[in-house]
């Protein structure tokens, strides 16, 4: 968790090998991600699923075809089996009956659920969620949060969820890390974080306007900008 620009999405991209670290290393399942060649990186990514902030569904494909995409790309399953698997995944997110709709024909929340079905199509060992609640209404937010937790438990996978929605995250997470300016500033269980006295966590959890994250963008003072200095003060 962390505010905008704190480096949450960057961490996901580093784990997925979409960014190279300028220093240090990312170790996933015993492998240093940035040292992998393209072939091995793609092999590792087959064990990962990622839900993008706005779903990133293929707009020219139906919900069914979107979920079928990774299955068709990475398996030699026949169409009948693919159909069964896709319908099961869509059923798990409650959208089996929307299988033939295109992303433009469904709501943002439904789109996020289709993307979730696509992310778990290959039963990944690691699922990454990039701001899965952004822009959703409260009902869709609750539905998505429950789905994430339930699917995680059902698949027995590891999930890394990046978000700034305190309520939903604390409801479904086992452990929380707080990021600020690219660094971990606090971590613990949701219960521990809820009563944390760390200034950043306190400001974040209680949605305070001012604190370690200042309201004003750092720079010159207002007096400097308006030239309001007493004569001879410089």
């Amino acid at each position, binding site marked *: 968790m962390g505010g905008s620009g704190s480096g949450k999405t960057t961490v996901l991209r580093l784990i*997925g090998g*979409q960014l190279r670290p300028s220093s240090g290393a990312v170790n996933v399942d015993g492998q240093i991600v940035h040292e992998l060649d*393209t072939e091995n990186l*793609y*092999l590792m*990514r*087959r064990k*990962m699923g*990622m839900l*993008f*902030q*706005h779903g*990133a*569904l*293929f*707009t020219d494909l139906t919900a069914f075809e979107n979920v079928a*995409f*990774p299955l068709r*790309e*990475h398996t030699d399953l026949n169409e009948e089996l693919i159909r069964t698997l896709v319908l099961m995944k869509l059923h798990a997110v409650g959208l089996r009956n929307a299988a033939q709709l295109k992303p433009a024909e469904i709501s943002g929340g439904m789109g996020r659920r289709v993307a979730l079905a*696509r992310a778990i199509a290959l039963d990944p060992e690691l699922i990454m969620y990039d701001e899965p609640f952004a822009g959703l209404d409260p009902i869709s937010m609750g539905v998505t949060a429950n789905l994430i937790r339930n699917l995680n438990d059902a698949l027995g996978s590891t999930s890394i969820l990046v978000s700034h929605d305190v309520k939903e995250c604390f409801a479904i997470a086992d452990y929380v890390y707080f990021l600020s300016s690219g660094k971990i500033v606090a971590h613990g269980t949701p219960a521990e974080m809820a009563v944390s006295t760390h200034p950043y966590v306190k400001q974040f959890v209680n949605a305070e306007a001012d604190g370690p994250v200042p309201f004003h963008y750092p720079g010159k003072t207002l007096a400097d900008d308006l030239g309001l200095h007493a004569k001879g003060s410089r």
Partner: protein
Amino acid sequence: MIARFLAAIGAWLRHSIQDLGFAVRSFFIIIAASGGLFRRPRLVVEQLFFVGSRSLVITTVSGLFVGMVLGLQGYYTLTTYGATQSLGQLVALSLMRELGPVVTALLFAGRAGTSLTAEIGLMKAGEQLSAMEMMAVNPIQRVLAPRLWAGVIAMPILGGIFTAVGIIGSYLVGVVLIGVDEGSFWSQMQAGVDLWKDIVNGTYIKSMVFGIAVTFIALFQGYQAQPTPEDVSGATTRTVVISSLMVWWLDFMMTAVMFSK
């Protein structure tokens, strides 16, 4: 002042060479990623429909009108020399060697090229290409390579159709409307047109080269565009401008090589 001017020229030159090198490298990366298409030709066939079939109407209509205008202008010019019987040859050579491939390439850049750039740019903006990468699917292999080969295959076919329809247009104006002798029209064409030099070289080889250039420029611009509305629209414009200039330059070079005595 002079030093700054020279430094600016140097920087421009260095950036241009760097950009060119990057583009050439990207081209070969797409070619290298094309091997998988032999196993999945359906990907190319789908794109052939999008870039080829959907460019058919504008190509056919333009070909008809260019042929009709050529028939009319050719007739007026040849009348001066009393050589109207050579109208068929004049029209066929003009269309096969130059107008067919060049105008088709320009239309293709405007119709299919812009569409490809916008599509790739928007896929990038919507994180669809990133999503593909995270699904361990190489977007160069899955998205760019099929589109490039579809363009390479579609262009010669469209160029051939443009030329054929253009000849029909000039026939309608020259023979049916104006009354040029039909036998002379076709026989002069038959006598003056060489299969290899004019049809294979003039129309098909040229069109194929234009197809590679225009499609690659469109894909490259879309893939390199920043995922913002301004840059995607700018990339679409650049596709038309760069493709058009490239078509003219390539046409001159190929004409010089193919038709020099």
